[in-house]
């Protein structure tokens, strides 16, 4: 069996009483692009620095290609880190920035020059080699930072929010470049971001970090369609999933403000008597009567709501519905005629709803899963 590209076991880091990284375990297959996503302060950057060896870990093991690197200094872990701020040396030309590592390690000049030109050409940086970082655009600087990491020929790429300093359009474009680059190099890559859209679109798999803990790891589809916790459910997907406090009505319904909502069979086992639960419904599963995007037939008694906000987004329009004192987000086709203050009827497309235990904040077990 080939070893994993990266194995992390029970990795922890505290600063004082704060558990910044709390017993995190995961593996990345050789050549995989694994994206770790989480809000600010979730411990993403620290986790990356623990793996790079820039910050010493308190406990746990880190293996790269089966090699235990936990006690090695950063330089001997064979990783390359791409920083959010690019970390280019302002007093060096692009060529000098690229050859920095090789010069520091004493690689002979002719060989390092050849390698710099090779990588610069591959990244389209060859016309810029004599320039200084301040003369480059943000996107170009990021490519220099990537090129420098490539020249390291690492066994593991670590990327710390490499796109966060780029404007929205360039971000999407560079995202594509990184994915293409990865599929060409096939080097195991651990990519950290706070942007869940980025995570969903880039990762072979994604891991969701919250307050130092890895809450879920899986393919983008798994994480989106089967969130293991309320946090994951709310964090992944825009707009966020609607979460409603409901009461279990065994055997097959939950009650929400007098409305009885039928629960799919796979979840019915969780409906204990008089149990408080949280119902999770994605915006696309809230069907507005009259919309072409409504799913399923209208039930006999749809729920009435008042439109509190209409938010056109080009190819779709988001609506915020006010109902029983809380707001529900849904979406309709862009030409759906509606105004703020209108009364509408809606229903839940119950085939794909989620149920969470409000005490543990974890998803209730589905039938047929562990």
């Amino acid at each position, binding site marked *: 069996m080939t070893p994993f590209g990266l194995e992390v076991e029970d990795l922890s880091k505290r600063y004082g009483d704060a558990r910044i990284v709390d017993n995190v375990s995961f593996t990345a297959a050789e050549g995989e692009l694994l994206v770790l996503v989480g809000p*600010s302060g979730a411990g993403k950057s*620290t986790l990356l620095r623990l793996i790079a060896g820039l910050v010493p870990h308190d406990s746990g093991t880190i293996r790269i290609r089966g090699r235990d690197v936990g006690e090695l200094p950063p330089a001997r872990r064979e990783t*390359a880190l791409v920083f959010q701020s690019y*970390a280019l*040396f302002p*007093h060096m030309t692009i060529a000098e920035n690229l050859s920095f590592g090789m010069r520091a390690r004493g690689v002979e000049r002719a060989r390092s020059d050849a390698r710099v030109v090779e990588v610069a050409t591959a990244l389209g940086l060859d016309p810029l080699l004599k320039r200084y970082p301040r003369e480059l655009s943000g996107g170009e600087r990021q490519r220099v930072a990537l090129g420098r990491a490539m020249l390291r020929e690492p066994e593991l790429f670590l990327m710390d929010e490499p796109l966060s300093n780029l404007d929205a359009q360039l971000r999407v474009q560079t995202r594509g470049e990184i994915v293409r680059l990865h599929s060409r190099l096939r080097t195991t890559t651990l990519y950290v971001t706070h942007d869940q859209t980025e995570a969903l679109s880039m990762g072979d798999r994604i891991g969701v970090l919250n307050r130092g803990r890895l809450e879920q790891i899986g393919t983008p589809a798994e994480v989106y369609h089967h969130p293991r916790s309320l946090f994951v459910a709310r964090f992944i997907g825009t707009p966020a999933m609607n979460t409603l406090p409901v009461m279990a009505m065994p055997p097959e319904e939950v009650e929400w403000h007098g409305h009885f909502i039928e629960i799919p069979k796979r979840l019915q086992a969780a409906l204990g008597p008089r149990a408080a639960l949280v119902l999770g419904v994605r915006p696309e599963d809230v069907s507005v009567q009259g919309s072409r995007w409504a799913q399923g037939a209208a039930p006999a008694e749809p729920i009435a709501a008042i439109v509190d906000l209409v938010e056109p987004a080009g190819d779709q329009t988001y609506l915020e519905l006010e109902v029983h004192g809380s707001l529900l987000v849904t979406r309709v086709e862009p030409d759906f005629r509606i105004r703020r203050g209108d009364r509408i009827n809606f229903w839940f497309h119950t085939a794909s709803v989620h149920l969470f235990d409000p005490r543990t904040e974890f998803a209730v077990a589905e039938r047929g899963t562990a």
Partner: protein
Amino acid sequence: MRRRDTSDGMLLLAAPLLTATAVLVVVPALVAVLFAFTEYDALSPPRLVGLANFRTLWHDPLFWMAVRNSTFIGVVSVPLRIGLALGLALLLMRQRRFSRAARIAVFLPSVVPEIAYALLWLWMLSPEYGPIGLALQATGLERHNLLLSPWGARRSIVLMGLFQIGELYIVLLAARRELPAELYELCAMEGVSAFWTFRNVTLPLLIPTIIFLGARDVAWSFQATFIPALVITKGGPEFATLFLPLYIYQNGFEYLRFGYASAMTVAMFVLTGALVGLQIALLRRWGGRQTERLEPRPADPST
């Protein structure tokens, strides 16, 4: 509020400083330049003498002695002071157990009043009971009287200056802290040595700050020799600590040759300018092409 009002307001706020600068710096400087072409003893009215003062200056061996002594301080003291301040800034940059106390210790000598500081050194260097002399004696060396030899006196003045580096230290510490941590993380990941990092990263990026401090410190070194020379060595022995400010002071306020003293002040101004210019040129060449400030970092939207 209209735009004009704003600039009027700013002018008003700057007025006290501008007035003080004009009255206390610009006007006296211009008056000094005018006096340089006169003979004036503060008793009878000044008399224009053209370039006579400068001709006398040119043939005054004590003036050239003072120029040599002052230049010695500028050339020896400034690099030592900046080197020491930089070393301490890099050493005490990280938060360690005693770094706070150490930082205060570095800064403290700079806030002691000049006269008190000079008197303190007079005691420290005293041949009879000064701790420095006694320490030298205890190590088996002959009791060397630092203040009584030209060699020792001049170096004692340099030594005194080496402890008043609080400001240099603070500015360099701040400049070093401004350098992005990522650059150093990158160096750690490449496994380069601390010296290589210092030579290729820290030093080039601090060069703009060092140039600024160096220029300022040359001017400081020239002037700061006045009080120790006046209090401790009185210019001696053998004129070894006759520095320009002391010689100017003696001519003006002891011999009442204000015209001559003014001419010397002009000469000192020119000399300071020349040394600062030379220093900037040297540091630019040595520090590489980059003399601009680091660009400000974009705001960090997350961890």
